[in-house]
């Protein structure tokens, strides 16, 4: 049984506008998936149905075999963590420590475990030295890591990150990349919505491409990124590495810079 089963999901707004059209996919524990697509493709609405924030008009989402329809979003928070685009919609505590601790207190996690999880989440997100800082004294890109840390601390099976790379510098991207790797090693399923194709190429095993409310491709990142027509249909730019490999006539699909460089060196002699 897959950790997450999304079955024929559709969603209509009360005004009749369809935001998601018959979307299906499964996610296994330890998988990291990027959901990509243009604005308005239905990515955020789809992931909001994973934790019950939005109730599907038809279809169902099963987490460990149980329908999200039977739970409130707050109850689902133990299983599915969601990091929103704007961290300021969440933060209200006076210190980073209290902000991370808040969700754990709500879940009635005992003191010792609470401290252990906060320390771990802070280490993963680079927040250790800011634990006693007021989150609003940190720049926006770091406030994002405060919200990521609180989701990591809650130890959910599924973690959804909405646009985590926006506004991040190289350090921030490295932290995101590292925590992606560590969390998947721990068996967590990571679902990320992003427009940063280079980041996806470097960090994700699987990509789901959404276009006009539907899933138009779902597969290994390199397989999807090398399908020019799919990427064009979804109005997505292929990563530079993929474009160079295709222009150079490389047959093997690779997202490895060294392999591409070696191919180019061999063929230019």
């Amino acid at each position: 049984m897959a950790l997450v089963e999304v079955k024929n999901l559709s969603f209509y707004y009360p005004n009749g506008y369809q935001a998601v059209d018959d979307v299906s996919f499964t996610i296994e524990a330890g998988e990291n998936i990027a959901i990509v697509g243009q604005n308005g493709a239905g990515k955020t609405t789809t992931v909001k149905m994973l934790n019950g924030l939005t109730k599907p008009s038809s279809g169902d989402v099963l987490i460990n075999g149980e329908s999200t329809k039977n739970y409130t979003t707050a109850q689902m928070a133990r299983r599915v963590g969601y990091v929103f685009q704007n961290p300021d919609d969440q933060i209200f505590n006076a210190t980073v420590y209290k902000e991370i601790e808040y969700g754990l207190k709500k879940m009635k996690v005992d003191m010792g475990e609470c401290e252990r999880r906060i320390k771990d989440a802070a280490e993963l997100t680079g927040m250790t030295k800011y634990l006693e800082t007021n989150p609003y004294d940190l720049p926006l890109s770091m406030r994002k890591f405060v919200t990521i840390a609180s989701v990591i601390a809650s130890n959910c099976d599924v973690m959804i990150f909405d646009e985590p790379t926006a506004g991040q510098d190289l350090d921030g991207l490295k932290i995101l990349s590292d925590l992606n790797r560590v969390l998947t090693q721990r068996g967590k399923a990571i679902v990320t919505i992003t427009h940063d194709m280079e980041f996806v190429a470097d960090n994700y095993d699987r990509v789901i491409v959404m276009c006009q409310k539907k899933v138009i491709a779902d597969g290994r990142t390199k397989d999807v990124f090398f399908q020019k027509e799919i990427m064009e249909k979804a109005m997505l730019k292929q990563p530079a590495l993929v474009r160079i490999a295709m222009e150079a006539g490389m047959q093997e699909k690779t997202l490895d810079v060294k392999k591409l460089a070696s191919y180019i060196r061999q063929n230019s002699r």
Partner: protein
Amino acid sequence: MKNMENKRKGIKSWNPLTSLYLIIVLAVVSILFDFRITLLTVALMIVLAAVSGEGASFTKLWLKSLVLVCVICFALQSLFIPGEDVLWSFWIFAVKREGVQKAVVLCSRILGVGSAILLGGKLIDMKHLTAVLEERGMSPAATYVLLSTANIIPQMSKKMSAILDAQRSRGIETDSSLLVRAKAFFPSVGPLLLNALVSAEERAITLEARAFSAPCRKTKLREIADTPRDKALRAALISILVLAIGGRIALWIALK
């Protein structure tokens, strides 16, 4: 832009200043006389909303907000204002004639002024109104305050919805009993206030970056037509207002 203006129906096609005059006249007339005139004025407002294509949304909002407030006010006033003439009683509760009379006066005023404000919100485009007011000499700072005040409620409710989603996602129940909702108060209102403070600072910087207070003549992006029909309507509305106030004074003197 011209096509968009042409698509506006009924009062929405008027110059916003004319619509504002209408709203003021309706509000004043509804409170000057007794509740029967108020009810007629409110009925007229529903008709005006309908011919402007806002009938359903205005009535829905009106029922959800004003009628509810009026029902509560009526019940409280008629039950708890002391009086001699008891019309109906049950257990410790008694409806007194004096209470009912005061409740009718209060509720008709709330209904009249409230309906006019709701109608104004539905029919007047605040961006257009502030542009017209600025054209007529109101300071840009004052029109900015007016516009941002009008926008604050829809913006805050949108923001609140995003905040509630974020808090629900971290395990905070927001849709249960009163006690549970009370517990969610601080996590919901905290980010709303902090966001408001941060965005106020950013908005001030953005305004200055766009030469908001530069001491020079500003370019207008919008030309709002002020037709002879609008001018005639405004003159008629002022006449009605003067007549209504005059009529009320005359009635007051006659009754005295």
